[in-house]
C-alpha cells in the first residue's frame, strides 16, 4: 500500500465524513429536540443542490448561487415545518415516518416536474477547480479540500453556537427536557422552527457542495439519508458531538473499505473471489459497523443525557 494513495483516501474519507456531519447535525437536533423522525431531511439536501445549481447558472456567480441556494433551502425548510411537520410532533414515530415518507415522494416528483427526471449538470466554480500540491507529491482536488475546510468550520461554529450562546443553551435544554423548557416560558414553537430551519440550511449546504462532485438528480437525498441514519444511530441520537465523531468514523470506514478491502482480501483469498466479495463487503461495511456498535452500546457512542 503506498503512502500517497493512503493519504489521498484519508482526505476522501474526511471529506465524506464532514458532508455526513452537515446532514447528521440537523437531523440529530431535530430528533433530539422535537422528537421527530424526519425522513424528508434528504429532500432538503436535494433542494439545496438544485437551487444552488439553478441560481449559479442563472446568475453566473458561484457565491450568489450558494447564498441564494442556502436561503432558499432555509425558506423551504421553514415552510415544510409550518405546514406539515408541526402537527406531527405529538404523534408517534410511525405517523412521522409515513408522513415524511409522503413528503419525499412529493419533493422528488416536484423536482422532476421542475427540472426533469434525468441528472442535471452542476459545474464547479473555476476558482475552486484544479489541484493543489500537498506533502509527498500528492495532488488533491482543491474543491474537495474546500469542502473539508467548510465542513470543519461549520463544525466549529456549531460547537460555539450550541455550547456557548443563549440559543445553544435553549437547544441543549430542549434536548434534555422539552416540557420543562416550555414551562420556563421559552417560546418552544419558535425554537422548533428556528432549529428546523437551521438543520434544513445545513442539509442544503451539504447538498449544494455535493452537487459538482456527485450527480444532481431526483432521489439523490435518499442515498445519503440512510448513511446519515447510520451516523446518528452510531453517534447516539440527539448528540452533536456523537454525530461529529460518528460521521468521521463512518466516512473513513466507508472510503477505506471501498479503496482497500478488495486488495486486502486478495491477499487472503483468491483474487477472483476477492473481486466479488470485496465490493459487496465494502458496501455493507458501515451497516456491519453499526450492528457491532449497537450490540455493545445500544444507545450509541455518545448518548445524549436526559429523557
Amino acid at each position, binding site marked *: 500500500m503506498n503512502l500517497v494513495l493512503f493519504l489521498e483516501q484519508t482526505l476522501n474519507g474526511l471529506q465524506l465524513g464532514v458532508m455526513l456531519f452537515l446532514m447528521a447535525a440537523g437531523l440529530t437536533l431535530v*430528533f433530539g429536540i422535537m422528537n421527530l*423522525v424526519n425522513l424528508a431531511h434528504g429532500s432538503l439536501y436535494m433542494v439545496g443542490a438544485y437551487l444552488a445549481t439553478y441560481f449559479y447558472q442563472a446568475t453566473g456567480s458561484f457565491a450568489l448561487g450558494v447564498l441564494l441556494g442556502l436561503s432558499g433551502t432555509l425558506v423551504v425548510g421553514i415552510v415544510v415545518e409550518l405546514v*406539515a411537520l408541526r*402537527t*406531527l410532533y405529538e*404523534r408517534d*414515530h*410511525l*405517523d412521522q*415516518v*409515513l*408522513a415524511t*415518507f*409522503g*413528503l*419525499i*415522494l*412529493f*419533493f*422528488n*416528483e*416536484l423536482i*422532476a*416536474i421542475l427540472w426533469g427526471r434525468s441528472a442535471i449538470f452542476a459545474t464547479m466554480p473555476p476558482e475552486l477547480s484544479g489541484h493543489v500540491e500537498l506533502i509527498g507529491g500528492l495532488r488533491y482536488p482543491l474543491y474537495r479540500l474546500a469542502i473539508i475546510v467548510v465542513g470543519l468550520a461549520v463544525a466549529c461554529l456549531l460547537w460555539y453556537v450550541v455550547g456557548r450562546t443563549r440559543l445553544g443553551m435553549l437547544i441543549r435544554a430542549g434536548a434534555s427536557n422539552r416540557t420543562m423548557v416550555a414551562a420556563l416560558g421559552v417560546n418552544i414553537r419558535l425554537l422548533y422552527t428556528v432549529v428546523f430551519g437551521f438543520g434544513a440550511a445545513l442539509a442544503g449546504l451539504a447538498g449544494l457542495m455535493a452537487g459538482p462532485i456527485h450527480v444532481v438528480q431526483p432521489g439523490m437525498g*435518499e442515498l445519503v439519508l*440512510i448513511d446519515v*441514519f*447510520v451516523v*446518528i*444511530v452510531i453517534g447516539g*441520537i440527539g448528540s452533536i458531538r456523537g454525530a461529529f465523531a460518528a460521521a468521521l468514523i463512518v466516512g473513513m470506514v466507508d472510503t477505506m473499505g471501498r479503496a482497500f478491502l478488495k486488495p486486502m482480501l486478495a491477499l487472503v483469498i483468491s483474487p477472483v473471489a476477492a473481486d*466479488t466479495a470485496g*465490493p*459487496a463487503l465494502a*458496501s*455493507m461495511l458501515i*451497516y*456491519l459497523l*453499526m*450492528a457491532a456498535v*449497537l*450490540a455493545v452500546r*445500544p*444507545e450509541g457512542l455518545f448518548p445524549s443525557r436526559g429523557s
Partner: protein
Amino acid sequence: MIRPRTWMLVAIMLLLAAVPPIAALFAQPFYLDLLRRVMIFAIAAVSLNLILGYGGMVSFGHAAYLGIGAYAVGVLAYHGIDNGWLQWAVAIGASALVAAAIGSISVRTSGIYFIMITLAFTQMLYYLGISIEEYGGDDGMRLGVRSQFTGLIDLNDPTAFYYLVFAILVLFLYLTHRLVNSRFGLVLQAVRSNEARTRAIGFSPYPYRLAAFVISGAMCGLAGALLVNQTAYLTPEFMNWTRSGELMFMVILGGIATTAGPLLGAAALLLLEDVLQGSSLLPKWVNDHWQLYLGVILILVVLFARRGLAGLLPGRERND
C-alpha cells in the same frame, strides 16, 4: 355470535374468490394479474401487521424478507433447481434465519433506534443484492422457470396461481388471527401496551418479541417467493427501502392491529397507484406525476384518517 366485521371480511374474501370467473367472462386477464399482486402484498402486509400492529415494533425494513424469499427462489432456479417445495421451504427458512439474526440485535432496542436499525439492515441486504453480479447485480435477472409443483398445480396457469395465492392469504389471515388471540399473542400485545407492567407480572418481553419478529419474517419470505413467481423477474428493487415504506403504509392505511386491515390497505394502495398511473379518466399531468399526488394523499391519510380503512367497517375489532 358472528360479528358484522367477520361477515364483512367473509364478503371481501368471497368477492376475491369470484374474480377469476368474472375476469374470464369480460376477457380482462389484467385484473386477475392486478388482484393477485394485491393479495401477494396483502400477505406481506399481514406479516408486517403482526409485529407492527400487535407487537408495536415499527419495522422499516420488512422488504428485506420479500427480497430474501424472492432471491431464494430465483437463485435456486438459476442453478437449475426448480422444485417448488424445496424453493419455498428455503425461502421461508432463509427469511426466518435472517429475521432471527436481525431481530436478535434490533428487538433489544425500541422506538426510533428500532426503526433505523431495521432500515439499515435492509439497506445492507439491498446493497448485497446489487453487488452480486452473478445474479444480475442491480439489473436483476429473469426467472426462467416458475416454481414447479409437478402434478399438483401449475403456476403458469394464471387462474391456478391466483387461487394458490388466495388460499395462502386465507390461511395466513386465519393463522394470525389465531396467533394474536393465543396466550403468545396476548403477551405480545401486553408488551406493546405497557412493557413495565408486563415485566412486573412475570413475562420477559424479549423472547416473545423476537419470536414474533421471526414468524413475521418467515411469512413475508413466502410472500417474496410468490412475488418473484408473479413478476417472473428477480431484482434487488424488491428490497428497496421505499418498498418497506409502502408495506408500512398498507398496514396503516388499512388500520393497524386489525385482521382485515392489511388486506384493505394493500388493495387500496395498489389500486390507487394503478388508477393514478394509468387511468385515462385522469388528466395526463396526474398520470405522469402520480407520485406527487400519492405523496400528498399519504400525508393527508396520516394526518386525518387515524384509524385506517378498517375503522370504517361496522362493529369494533376485538383486538383494539
